[in-house]
């Protein structure tokens, strides 16, 4: 048995059993972060806070929500919205956070792409982040089913139909996923389970993994500069904080994070209280009706770009393009053949590629919501082709990039 001495304080008592001093050093005071960063480096913290909001508001919604096709709609729209004290607050926070979390995820992703933070030892950061993106997407989709409104039902119908995989006609698979021929009780119950248990567990596990992947390669910096973290840390510890290129995670980096978070919260709560319609689609305030399709069916905004890649093609090609869009971001660290892990503005052709991709994503997103007619159909079709084209071009242009 390990040797324990009589504790001199609560701190000492804990320290002997949990090594809290060592943990604090490793995770906070001597977890070195580059000093040359901007507010985009705080998006991780913003995401963590948003996830915490989702978790807490979700717990309170869970106490009154009823996963039954007959009562689900009223349990949300009547019980939670009017009967439960502050039930409306939890619902608005949950709904708005679910939408805004994707905005921050996209900013976080494109920050990573711009600064090359997926390369040279940071591949696992990117991969675990993309896994988080996928599980968040599944979490958002399953949660969208729960109020059992018109959009819940019809989005559920359309998205699960994708699993028949076009000409493979896997109707058995679709019915297996639904537990019925159409979205019904079994479907609602299993998506409820996924939303409140299995997927949140997966997300929390992946968040742990994502943090762990950062610890060894360290966070990237604004100029993609490589330096000796050990040496810079020594400088910092000796008191030359001004001269050192690193800062401590806590409280140096943390204080900047929290300032960014505070600005974000102003924006977030403004949306929660005064501008929530974009995240809580009015159509979903009509109860689910399997015999009446809404005039326009569209997914939430964060799925629109991949929806638009599916839509303009015939079924089979559309599905292949859709599949391509789902996995291609995951492969980014391996498609970028350039040896340079520096910001896009130092990388020539890649810089153009980055801005084209961003604009392409926005065009796809916009066209994904438009009714598929006339000029919008055409724009959507070419945007979908450009998306595929851009990703095919990536290995070629990065291979040609000269080493800096």
């Amino acid at each position, binding site marked *: 048995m390990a040797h324990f001495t009589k504790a001199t304080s609560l701190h000492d008592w804990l320290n002997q059993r949990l090594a809290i001093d060592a943990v604090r050093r490793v995770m906070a005071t001597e977890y070195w972060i580059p000093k040359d960063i901007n507010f985009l480096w705080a998006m991780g913290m913003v995401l963590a806070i948003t996830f915490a909001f989702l978790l807490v508001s979700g717990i309170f919604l869970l106490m009154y929500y009823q996963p039954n096709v007959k009562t689900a709609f009223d349990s949300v729209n009547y019980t939670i919205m009017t009967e439960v004290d502050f039930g409306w607050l939890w619902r608005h926070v949950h709904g708005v956070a679910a939408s805004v979390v994707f905005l921050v995820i996209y900013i976080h992703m494109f920050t990573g792409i711009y600064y090359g933070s997926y390369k040279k030892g940071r591949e696992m950061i990117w991969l675990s982040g993309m896994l988080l993106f996928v599980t968040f997407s599944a979490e958002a989709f399953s949660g969208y089913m729960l109020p059992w409104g018109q959009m819940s039902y019809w989005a559920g119908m359309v998205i699960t*139909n994708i699993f028949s995989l076009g000409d493979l006609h896997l109707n058995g698979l679709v019915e297996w996923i639904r*537990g019925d*021929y159409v979205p019904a009780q*079994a479907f609602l119950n299993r998506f409820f389970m996924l939303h409140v248990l299995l997927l949140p567990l997966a997300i929390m596990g992946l968040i742990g993994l994502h943090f762990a992947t950062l610890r060894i390669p360290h966070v990237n910096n604004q100029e993609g500069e490589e330096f000796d973290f050990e040496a810079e840390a020594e400088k910092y510890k000796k008191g030359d904080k001004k001269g050192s290129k690193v800062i401590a995670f806590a409280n140096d980096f943390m204080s900047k994070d929290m300032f960014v978070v505070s600005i974000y919260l102003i924006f977030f709560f403004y949306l929660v209280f005064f501008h929530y319609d974009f995240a809580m689609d009015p159509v979903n305030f009509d109860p689910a009706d*399997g015999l009446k399709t809404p005039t*326009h069916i569209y997914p939430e905004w964060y799925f629109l770009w991949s929806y638009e890649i599916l839509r303009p093609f015939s079924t*089979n090609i*559309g599905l292949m393009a859709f599949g391509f869009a789902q996995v291609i971001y995951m492969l980014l660290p391996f498609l970028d053949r350039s040896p340079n892990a520096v910001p896009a503005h130092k990388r020539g052709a890649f810089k153009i590629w980055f801005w084209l991709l961003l604009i392409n994503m926005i065009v796809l997103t916009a066209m994904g919501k438009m009714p598929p007619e006339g000029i919008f159909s055409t724009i959507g079709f070419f945007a979908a082709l450009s998306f595929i084209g851009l990703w095919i071009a990536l290995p070629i242009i990065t291979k040609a990039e000269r080493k800096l």
Partner: protein
Amino acid sequence: MTDKNRRGFIGKAFGAVAGVGAVASLYAMKKSWDPLPSVKAAGFTTLDMSGYKGNELITEKWRGKPVFVLKYTPEMVASLNDEQKKRVLKIGSDTYMIVLGLCTHLGCIPGYNPAEKAFLCACHGGTYDVTGNVTKAPPPRGLDIPPFKIVGNTIVLGEEGEEYKKLLADGITLSV
């Protein structure tokens, strides 16, 4: 066999036994997701064909899905071409279209325009003619015909009768 090898072998064997258990439990998990027997049993619907009026689209329900029943007027029957005739059903002395009212693209419900005698899917703009044949993409094929069996002047949805099997064999519809 040395002791070391023996220990390695037993360890691997233990892993294999655990694997068998895990795979076996996956089977149970898969089966638990299957549609329940009561859900499957509710899959048969009988329609009495005597009450329908010409060129009036009636939406019935089968397995929770909408089924379009459209009785053709004599003029509509006369205007059908050979391709369209393959898709229509003769029950008693009348001719009907009976199809699943779900767009074959992504499952929205197309709307019927009795004046133009055509269907339009509002979701992605696909159109169908009066027998459910596609006239404008994105739908990849005509509206599916549900399994049916004609019994006198009634039709049982969910059972596969001779006429349905022939439609399947001719590739007019897919099994749904």
